């Protein structure tokens, strides 16, 4: 919808320059307006139909996410609970995906909810990204403990987040945070990254 794009504003609108100051140690950016859908599914026989819609298998292992490219382009599906998933897709696809998924799961053993504006997305990468997260996140993000495809719901500082490990070795992470907590978390990240701005020096 054209009106959509003309008027929309993301929770971290205006933070780009502050985020950029953390580079090159940490490349931090908001990736706003992703299509996000909560998918609940207790009828596992429908999983195949869901996979066909998304082009990605639903993650079966707790605390992982699956990713791939399907009929609706690149998609990530995060395991959030025994019957709960979060589907991430390109901006603008929420309505299309909502109806496609609803059709795939039937109307008795599942639910689909558009939660696109519920959380915003931050991407963190760079040589100090894991260090930065370690200041506020108690999860072990070492590649041996959190390999590519890890997805956890945890706290970063005092904000609840969903954390996806895109590339454990290179230190590439996605942080999903509730919109109302986004500016708190952004301020926290910028503050935590203060030492890493002088990346040329080794910290004391």
């Amino acid at each position, binding site marked *: 919808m054209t009106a*959509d794009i003309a*008027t929309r504003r993301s929770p971290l609108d205006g933070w780009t320059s502050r985020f950029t100051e953390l580079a090159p140690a940490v490349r931090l950016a908001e990736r*706003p307006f992703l299509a996000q859908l909560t998918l609940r599914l207790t009828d596992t026989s429908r999983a195949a139909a869901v996979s066909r819609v998304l082009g990605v298998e639903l993650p079966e292992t707790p605390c992982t996410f699956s990713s791939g490219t399907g009929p609706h382009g690149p998609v990530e599906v995060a395991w959030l609970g025994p019957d709960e998933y979060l589907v991430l897709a390109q901006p603008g696809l929420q309505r299309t995906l909502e109806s496609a998924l609803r059709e795939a799961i039937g109307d008795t053993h599942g639910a689909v909810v558009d*939660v696109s504006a519920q959380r915003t997305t931050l991407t963190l990468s760079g040589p100090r990204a894991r260090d930065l997260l370690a200041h506020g996140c*108690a999860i*072990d993000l070492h590649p041996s403990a959190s390999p590519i495809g890890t997805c956890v719901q945890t706290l970063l500082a*005092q904000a609840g987040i969903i954390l996806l490990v895109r590339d454990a070795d290179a230190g590439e992470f996605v942080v999903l945070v509730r*919109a109302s907590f986004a500016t708190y978390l952004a301020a926290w990240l910028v503050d935590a990254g203060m030492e890493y701005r002088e990346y040329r020096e080794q910290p*004391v």
Partner: protein
Amino acid sequence: MTADFRLPRGGRIDRDSALRFTFNGLSLTGRQGDTLASALLANGVHQVTTSIKYGRPRGIMAAGVEEPNALVQVAEPFAEPMLTATTVELYDGLVADGLVGHGRLTDEPDPARYDSKHAHCDVVVVGAGPAGLAAALTAARSGARVVLVDDQNEAGGSLLGTDDYLDDRPSDAWVRDVVAELDATPDVLLLNRTAAFGAYQDGFVLALQRRTDHLGFDAPRHIARHRIWRIRAKQTVIATGAHERPIVFGDNDRPGIMLAGAARTYLHRYGVQVGRRVGVFTTNDSAYVAAIELAEAGVDVPVLIDARHDVPPKLGAECAARGIDVYAGHVVTGTEGRDHLTDVHIGSLTGWHADTVVCDTLLVSGGWNPAVHLFSQLGGALRYAPGLGAYVPGERLPTARAAGSAAGAFEVTTCIEQGAGAGRDAARAAGFSPGVEVAVPVADARAEETPSAVLWSVPGEPNGVFGAEYVPNAPFGSVPDDARFVDLQRDATVSDVLRATGAGLSSLEHVKRYTTIGTAHDQGKTSGLLAAGIVADALGEDLADRRPTTFRPPYTSVPFAALGGRDRGELYDPVRVTALHDWHVAHGAEFEDVGQWKRSRHYPRQGEDMHAAVLRECRAAREGVALMDASTLGKIDVQGPDAAELLDMLYTNMMSTLKVGRIRYGVMCGIDGMVIDDGTVIRLTEDRFLLTTTTGNAAMVLDWVEEWLQTEWPHLRVFATSVTEHWVTVPLVGPRSREVLATLAPDLDVSNDAFGFMTWQDGTVAGIPARVCRISFSGELAYEINVNAWHGLALWEALIEAGEPYGITPYGTETMHVLRAEKGYPIVGQDTDGTVTPQDLGMSWAVSKKKADFIGKRSFARPENLRPDRKHLVGLLPADPTVLLPEGGQIIESDHLPEPPVQCLSPHSPAGLNRAHRVVAQPPVRMLGHVTSSYDSAALGRTFALAVLRSGRERIGEKLYVPIGDQLAAVTVTETVLYDKEGARRDG
């Protein structure tokens, strides 16, 4: 008076540096690598302060964290109280003063940054001495992830205080090699200046890293000064070394009396001789080495007093060769000196010989206490080792092990062997196969020859023998009746301990509290075991049969600022904001905190106070059009074939009969029948609903729903999802709201017939897809417009623009409260407090009589819930329409207040009876309830209030009173609805 006590060579200091510092007003110079203590000693300064109770001069006793005396207050660069001079690294420009017991906090804001960081590993090793280094290297070679923490500025531990050789090289070469290999091994983190202060279950270790203190004025501002490390390890190796134990004797507290090992450390690590003429008093071989090494460095060591009868032959011979007289079977019985030691009285244990030796320094060693603190914190049992006179780890723990001196081993090669073994075992337990073995070097250290003796306190009488002649210069001015100090920081003596045991105390925990021994900054590192030994002797018991005290975190002091970290200022607690927050800020809103949310409370114009702004905002809502940001309301999407069944159970009223397209107000109760939340329920489709909750209860209600679904009703096919922040919600309120909405939503028929009260429609508002609900929390014609939060600001600005011809007015939570109160709508959490039923609120209409069951239903039949004198929600109108009743004000019947004090016990009770037998009379003033909400109303032209009042509905029309200070305000009880009782304004 100062003099140069720096030796011409030796020490790990930079002799080309000159660090100027000020201590107690004295300008002094030290070297890079010094601590404040070593720099003071290098200048001949022993006395640091005076003692807290008796004002006795006190000096430097140790060389590390165990220091009981040398407390200082740092003044520059930033005031910091209660540091030990032995742990402050010297820097240029340091200004410090000795501290008498208490530190002083500055009232200046602290400019430094503090932070914390999580670290994860397979093996955490605490202590980078010989055992810890060997443990870390062994674990690292197996491929384990290792964190090695050490509280010193460089690795080496006890080796830093010796001149031992390992494999024919100075020991620091061995240390350098190990550190270099650790540094080069991936996934090994070596943290210097980092004190592990707490060890907890599941391998959780907390450590404090002092990152920039040593840089003084040059500390970079952007680097966090202190960092709390939160380390989670599969296995823990405790290689924390040992603390030397003093011996108690008369006047054992004079400056110049210090631990023998500390003197060695000052000699080898800092190139400082602690005195010109140094005596030694020991119960073990280790102090012989100190005596010999000091003599080798050119210091006059006239005498070594050994409480043992058997002198170690080789060490004794070495002493003799250096002119040191060894007195076996002798003890120190007292000392002389005012600000500094001058003489040492010695005597044989058998009593036949006594002598006095002129000394300016006396080194003392009563043996070594393994630093078992972290092992004990982990719950590890301790065992008394009679040969050491100390506690050692007494059991195997599945995830922690001690090694080296912390485990009671004191030979360097044994420490390295034990460390390597612990590192190997820890790595193996964490799932790693051993790598290349760490070779145990050959050490040239002198071996122990004669077993240690255990001596807590030199036997003798407290008075007469000991320095009772001393005249104190204490501010508190008392003279001790005993100068045999056990805890020097607390000025607690042997007599104090004996008074405790004499009073019948036997538990060390009780004695500790009675005497305060072990409660100072050092937590009894030098005094605790002495006290335990003296107590055991006094009671005629064996320490091995007594339970040791439990060590608790923190091992060393941790500044609160460090624990606070970056959770201060704007990051103290998350501030939750809506998508419209920036607009509110830009338009001068005053905010109030609702949970973690910032909500606009009102929007004062130039010159307006809150009262004026709220009256204006209320008028706009009642007479024109107004809008507010209600995005913080909790919103929960509920869908599934059994959604209606779930809602029938959650709400007191019937939700399954709600038609698609319609909205119903609902009340939720707990199992006790008390109101926990309220809100609206929108039926989106046959099997899909959207619930709203109060702002503060959004998370609670979702948890509540999930709890019932997961534990009691897992058979229900229904799913609840929070969508609170997906939506921006804007109530558009007032008689002109329909016109404003019509302007922006041309495709929406907003007429009352087409769009009735408590219905919703999807449409386009200002070009934005929206869900519009005819809900009113003010009694006025109102539309709640919900849009995807990304478009919230666009919607808001479009509404402001479209409403401009109608004088559209943004309003805040205060106005919302007034408007709803005028209509008698309660706010859960303000007008209710967890003891209020729907019936109490006058909402029996919202409690279904048809439903077979719902949460809270059974409790409504309890006699207590049926009492006629329950408190009901009512309205109150003050007789004086300008009087604003205080919220929380009590409601009473009496038109006069009795004079205080209010007599609550019957004056007729017989005086001799104890309290239990007195008759408690009715209070003279019966409290009938209290004011829950109180406002000035523009619409009513007067003040009004809501209140919960005993039998309130039966009292309507009655005149009651509310005390305001010492005045009574007369009020008339009314129904709750005070404005537009007919509801005529609802439809515009």
